[in-house]
């Protein structure tokens, strides 16, 4: 079978939809036995099967149609109450679901033809279904016609003689009385139809003709009902009657046998602004003109009766469309409404598209900065104003876009319920997990990357943090250990805490071990923080088993690296005997930050704004590396020295007070250049080892500015101070 490209796309849609339908069908089948009032569910299952069958038919996938037909017949019997729900029936239908799934998968793999093995296994499944169908097992054709002809016996009679050779269209033609006087001959119009297709059947009605005396030989009294077999669409056929439409009643209906196809067509149409009329229009069942007339009638009726008549009913009244078609269209409309309601709650978006959007907004932010720079150079007030509003909009767009990526961390946390449950079984410890702040939102990319490190920390805390039950009893703690996962926002960061109520870290043992491993000099004076941080050192993890400490380092260097890659830091609090809390400080987003632009010599640097506490002028530069700020000592970090900038310092330097984890430091710079939005561009691998720089950004002027990594600088500073 050769399908053109368009058809292939439609086929892909078919497979996706069918797979989804089958999923629903399976879920419904499973639920079927436990539902009190199953008719709605049965209908849903039936519709699913029916839709698959119909769509498969459109693609000529005969084997799927054949298989589904039997399943559908069973479901139809179930729907009409000839069968009752039983576990045997469900057990028979479920494998059919699976089989359909594999059939569809074959189609996905490009195997459109039927496959002997599959057909055989399919037939076995169908054989299992036969007992349910015994009362009236119809051949597919008979069932099809039965369904098709059921609803309007009167009309079917006219075509009954010739059902097999069915046409596509049923035409009701009652031309106006005056048409003959107007020089138009209905017969010639009918004759014209033969050029559009073949007239399969035609019935002439003359009952409108009055008795001989009052009959006007120049008036038209004849009506025709025509079955036309034609490839032409409704518009084309209708246009044949353009000249004669006034005063005539012309109805062009898809023939009964075709209705299932039109129903499928309506179902397969997707339109997010679907008016019923438009749906019918699109599927070619009615034409624009008919729709307009119907709408007009709806309006006048509404006015007259003060109640809204439904467009579908009117169209049927006017014999423009047949009821089953309207029902299908209504159903579709309802579905669209329903799915719209669902979409309002959430939309699934390809993460790549979102990333692309964020990227573009990043570029937009940069371009805005460039435009701002140019705008500053003119004195055009209007331009300034216009630009100001652009900037505020861009900021909003940026925030919204970033918000799009924000997901509650709860879903990540709740994963650990299972982990904790499993591991505590494994370890023979009774540990409960307490989750706080699950609703705290964080960038999706952060969530993705935090999963593994967090798992490590959770495992470690359970394995090595929380003591065995006996030891806990000895220490007077409740037998059940507690593991806490906590999340909250703090100054532009998300903080994730992994806490346990275990034994805490043993400072002395870590110290001894570090000396032994040559990580620190014997006798070095280290703060608790520094000692705890040693557990993240690579190599520390290889330590052989020591109680209370062992394994704490297993993979901890990996954890540390992961967190650092996220521009985050780990902070450890530990109270011996009471527990350990690891705090992960992570940026909320990885893409864009608010920055504070400063200048040193020729170069510009960006300091993340959420780190900046205040700016003060450097009083008198007397080469000291600290100043007094409101009674506290504020150590300096001179960016000029740090980045080895040549040239003399500006006459009046400034100090930017930055804070991290309660530690303050002053960055000494030449110029303050104000706030800006910054798109973080990662530095190349070549600069991976550079300390104190978190990335780069492109300024409006096209210059590159480095983004200062404040936490690293402060830690380094502290380290330097201690070692001095």
């Amino acid at each position, binding site marked *: 079978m050769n399908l053109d490209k368009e058809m292939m796309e439609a086929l892909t849609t078919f497979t996706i939809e069918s797979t989804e339908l089958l999923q629903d069908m399976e879920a419904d089948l499973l639920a079927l036995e436990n539902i009190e009032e199953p008719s709605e569910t049965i209908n849903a299952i039936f519709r699913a099967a029916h839709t698959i069958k119909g769509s498969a038919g459109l693609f000529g996938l005969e084997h799927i149609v054949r298989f589904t037909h039997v399943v559908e017949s069973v479901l139809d019997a179930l729907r009409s109450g000839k069968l009752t729900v039983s576990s045997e029936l469900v057990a028979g239908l479920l494998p059919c679901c699976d089989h359909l799934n594999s059939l569809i998968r074959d189609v996905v793999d490009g195997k459109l033809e039927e496959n002997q093995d599959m057909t055989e296994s399919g037939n076995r499944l169908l054989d299992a279904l036969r007992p349910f169908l015994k009362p009236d097992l119809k051949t597919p054709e008979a069932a099809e016609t039965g369904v098709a002809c059921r609803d309007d016996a009167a009309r079917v009679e006219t075509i009954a003689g010739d059902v097999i050779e069915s046409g596509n269209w049923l035409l009701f033609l009652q031309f106006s009385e005056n048409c*003959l006087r107007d020089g138009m001959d209905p*017969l010639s119009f009918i004759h014209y139809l033969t050029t559009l297709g073949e007239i399969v059947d*035609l019935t002439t009605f003359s009952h409108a003709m009055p008795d*001989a005396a009052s009959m006007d030989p*120049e008036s038209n009294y*004849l009506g025709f009902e025509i079955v036309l077999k034609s490839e032409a669409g409704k518009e084309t056929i209708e246009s044949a009657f353009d000249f004669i439409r006034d005063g005539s009643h012309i109805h062009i209906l898809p023939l009964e046998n075709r209705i299932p196809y039109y129903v499928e067509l309506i179902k397969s149409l997707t339109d997010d602004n679907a008016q019923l009329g438009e749906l019918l229009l699109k599927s070619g069942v009615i034409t624009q003109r008919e729709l307009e007339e119907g709408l007009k009638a709806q309006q006048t009726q509404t006015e007259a009766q003060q109640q809204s008549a439904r467009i579908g009913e009117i169209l049927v009244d006017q014999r423009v469309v047949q009821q089953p078609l309207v029902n299908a269209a209504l159903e579709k409309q309802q579905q669209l409404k329903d799915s719209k309601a669902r979409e309002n709650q959430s939309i699934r978006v390809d993460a790549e598209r979102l990333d692309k959007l964020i990227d573009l907004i990043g570029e937009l932010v940069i371009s805005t900065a460039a435009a701002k720079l140019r705008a500053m150079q003119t004195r055009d007030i209007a331009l300034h104003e216009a630009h100001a509003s652009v900037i505020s909009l861009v900021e909003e767009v940026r925030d919204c876009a970033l918000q799009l990526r924000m997901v509650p961390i709860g879903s990540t946390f709740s994963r650990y319920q299972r982990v904790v449950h499993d591991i505590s079984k494994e370890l023979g410890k009774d540990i409960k997990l307490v989750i706080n702040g699950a609703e705290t939102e964080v960038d999706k990319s952060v969530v993705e990357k935090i999963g593994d490190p967090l798992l490590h920390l959770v495992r470690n805390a359970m394995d090595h943090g929380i003591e065995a039950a006996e030891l806990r009893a000895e220490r007077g703690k409740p037998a059940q250990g507690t593991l806490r996962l906590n999340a909250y926002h703090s100054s532009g960061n998300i903080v994730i805490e992994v806490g346990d109520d275990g034994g805490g870290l043993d400072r002395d043992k870590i110290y001894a071990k570090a000396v032994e491993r040559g990580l620190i000099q014997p006798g070095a004076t280290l703060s608790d923080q520094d000692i705890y941080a040693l557990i993240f050192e690579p190599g520390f993890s290889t330590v052989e088993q020591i109680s209370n400490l062992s394994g704490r380092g297993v993979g901890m260097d990996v954890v540390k690296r992961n967190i650092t890659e996220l521009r985050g830091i780990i902070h450890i609090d530990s109270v011996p005997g009471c527990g350990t809390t690891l705090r992960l400080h992570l940026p909320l987003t990885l893409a864009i930050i608010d920055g504070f632009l400063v200048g040193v010599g020729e170069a510009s640097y960006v300091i993340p704004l959420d780190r900046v506490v205040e700016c003060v002028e450097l009083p008198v530069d007397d080469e000291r590396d600290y100043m007094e700020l409101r009674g506290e000592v504020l150590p300096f970090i001179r960016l000029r020295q740090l980045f080895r900038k040549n040239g003399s310092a500006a006459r009046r330097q400034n100090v930017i007070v930055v804070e991290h984890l309660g530690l303050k430091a002053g960055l000494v710079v030449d110029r303050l250049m104000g706030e800006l939005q910054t798109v973080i561009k990662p530095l190349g691998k070549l600069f991976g080892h550079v300390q104190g720089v978190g990335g780069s950004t492109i300024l409006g002027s096209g210059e590159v500015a480095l983004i200062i990594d404040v936490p690293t600088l402060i830690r380094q500073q502290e380290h330097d101070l201690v070692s001095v």
Partner: protein
Amino acid sequence: MQTLTIEGELTVFTAAEQKTSLLAFLNTGDELEINLANVGEIDTAGLQLLILIKREAAQSGKTLRFVMHSKAVLDVLELTRLTSAFGDQVVLAHNEESPR
């Protein structure tokens, strides 16, 4: 048995007079025959007249047959599927097409 031969066209242009003559012919006897051999042209109006006269005859219990259909008449009866409804014997003056 009376026979009427319709001459010329059976169209909207002649319909008025044809109607008069046809109805008049209906009163000439109980067994009637209308020869259509010379009908060169027929349209909806003409067809209506044929239907009308057939109906009137049936209503008054008379027998009325159309005979010797011309090609034009046959084509129209064929198109409108009225051949069998009229129930007349169709003599194939032209053998190109066979009516059903």
